[in-house]
């Protein structure tokens, strides 16, 4: 079987398939996994399986690296907690950091980049001031981008810590204000759950809604396979809970994200074999196939493939973030630089 994303997905879904993969194909799987930020997750899936020594050593390295990423992510969260403690504002961890903080399977082997937090919109100024006081500073100095960010985006302009060199993204909602769909930040925060140290994470259903929002309504599907893997893991962790699917549907409707949630369930089932509620996922659509083509557009050398599909999704992602007039103005200003 050809290497690349397709083989990677097959292995994640069914680790037993590892027994039939030769050394050349492994090189391809690893290159694709690195490009999709899924090597740690793959290493976790294959943990405990009898594998050739060289491959085993490579995966050991990946597991160890994921552990380091976990320590680093939790530390950034802790430093943010210390900086914001006196404000008594709810600080909700998002994405990778939330998964490891809550000990979820979506956090196992995950590569984690910046720290993402969600805070109430009316406390943004105070949060910003406290972070800057504690050593974070703005990444970009540009005035236009700053205005754009503050007016339309769902987060503050990016901040980076002066000494630790790590970024923090402070969200006040989970989709840009220019997007068609308007999730309820207040509801997300109200339903969030408190961790032992006082930081918070989204309620399970909201985690999936957020992951789906991030996957479809915000981005051009870059990193999509990993996002979808998060969703697969979250559904496995929570899907068996009493009343979960009803809850998920309710929250998806509340946040106006029913379509993206349904699609993410269908795609997760198609690629990763996730058990999903058929009623909520809905029947397969023709467009699902194009999403799958985009998600699997990675070859055994780690190269991005299928340029036409990629371009289509790239344009679409801007369309979703911005009404046409605003998009034209934004692109014009950027082009002038």
């Amino acid at each position: 079987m050809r290497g690349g994303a397709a083989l990677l997905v097959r292995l994640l879904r069914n680790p037993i398939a590892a027994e039939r993969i030769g050394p050349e194909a492994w090189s391809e799987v690893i290159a694709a996994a690195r490009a999709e930020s899924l090597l740690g997750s793959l290493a976790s899936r294959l943990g405990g399986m009898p594998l050739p020594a060289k491959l085993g050593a490579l995966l050991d390295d990946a597991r160890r690296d994921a552990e380091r990423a976990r320590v680093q992510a939790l530390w950034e969260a802790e430093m943010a907690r210390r900086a914001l403690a006196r404000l008594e504002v709810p600080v909700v961890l998002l994405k990778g950091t939330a998964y490891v903080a809550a000990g979820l399977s979506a956090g196992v082997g995950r590569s984690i980049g910046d720290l993402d937090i969600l805070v109430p919109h009316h406390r943004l100024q105070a949060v910003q001031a406290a972070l800057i006081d504690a050593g974070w500073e703005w990444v970009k100095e540009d005035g236009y981008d700053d205005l754009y960010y503050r007016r339309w985006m769902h987060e503050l302009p990016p901040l980076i810590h002066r000494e630790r060199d790590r970024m923090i993204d402070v969200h006040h909602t989970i989709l840009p204000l220019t997007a068609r769909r308007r999730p309820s930040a207040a509801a997300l925060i109200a339903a969030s759950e408190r961790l032992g140290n006082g930081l918070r994470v989204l309620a399970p259903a909201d985690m999936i809604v957020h992951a789906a929002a991030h996957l479809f309504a915000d981005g051009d599907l870059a990193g999509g396979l990993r996002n979808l893997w998060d969703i697969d893991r979250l559904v496995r962790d929570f899907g068996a809970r009493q009343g979960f699917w009803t809850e998920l549907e309710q929250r998806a409707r509340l946040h106006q994200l029913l379509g993206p949630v349904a699609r993410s369930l269908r795609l997760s089932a198609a690629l990763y074999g996730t058990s999903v509620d058929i009623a909520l996922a809905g029947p397969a659509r023709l467009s699902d196939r194009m999403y799958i083509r985009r998600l699997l557009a990675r070859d055994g050398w780690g190269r991005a493939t299928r340029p036409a599909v990629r371009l289509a999704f790239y344009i679409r992602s801007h369309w979703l973030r911005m009404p046409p007039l605003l998009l034209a103005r934004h692109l014009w200003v950027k082009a002038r630089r």
Partner: protein
Amino acid sequence: MRHNLHLQIGPASFRIGSAWAAPIRALSALYQDYPQAELPCDFTVRLEPQKPWRRWLRPSVSIAGDYVLPGAAPLPLEHGLLAAEMGMNLQMALGQKRLLLLHAATVERGGRALVMTGESGAGKSTLAALLGESGWRLLGDEFALLDPDTGLLHPFPRAVSLKNGAIAVLEGKVAADRFGPLLVGTPKGHIRHLRPNREAIERAREPARPALILFPRFGADLPEAVRGVGAAEAFVRLTQASTNYGHLGLRGFEALTRLVTQTEARAIDYHQTATALRLVETLWAEDAA
């Protein structure tokens, strides 16, 4: 990637793919005596055109792979070999996470290793290459790999990258078939790659115990000088010389503190290669005593 090659260099293996045949041919020739690569390869390097038409029109090579440096400028096709070497460097610098990686030139004699590290342009590659041709075994001219579990240094005997004046010096000492092509007009001037000798290649899986750390400094007018370097200073300078210290966590901390507390460190200033070589031999003899 139609043209490709696998390389095993010390403990690391590379899969190098290229849109053009020439860089792969040059790599094959330069690394002709190296052992078969162990699969799956540790790292993937890709030499590819930035835009599809740049494959033929003023062909230029973009360096890509598992790890990339965003915004890196592509190189012209005639410097494709250099692009491949830079690509391998990049994968090691950003992707090596098991062994502590130090920017250093290392040579070994009698089972003990000399580690030369410090700023670029101090001539470490040249010194290592010369020592490698006069009784020392070359472990590597670019990266030293410290094993946190054993405290030993693993060889990484890549082709030595000789620049400008150093090329002629080594051409005078080494057989012509060990050199790669002369690359003219690179961002660093003239470059010529030198394949390490048979011994270095054959013993590429034999680690060595570090015995002396040297911080050489080169300056045309610099008077000869030798200075002791304390453990704290050595520690800080070595963390600065490492791209992956932070990735190794407690193991890295223990390995590096052990290295600086158990190994002598010296700084030397020199203005002539011969001086540096003499100082090395003197300090080595002192240390052995």
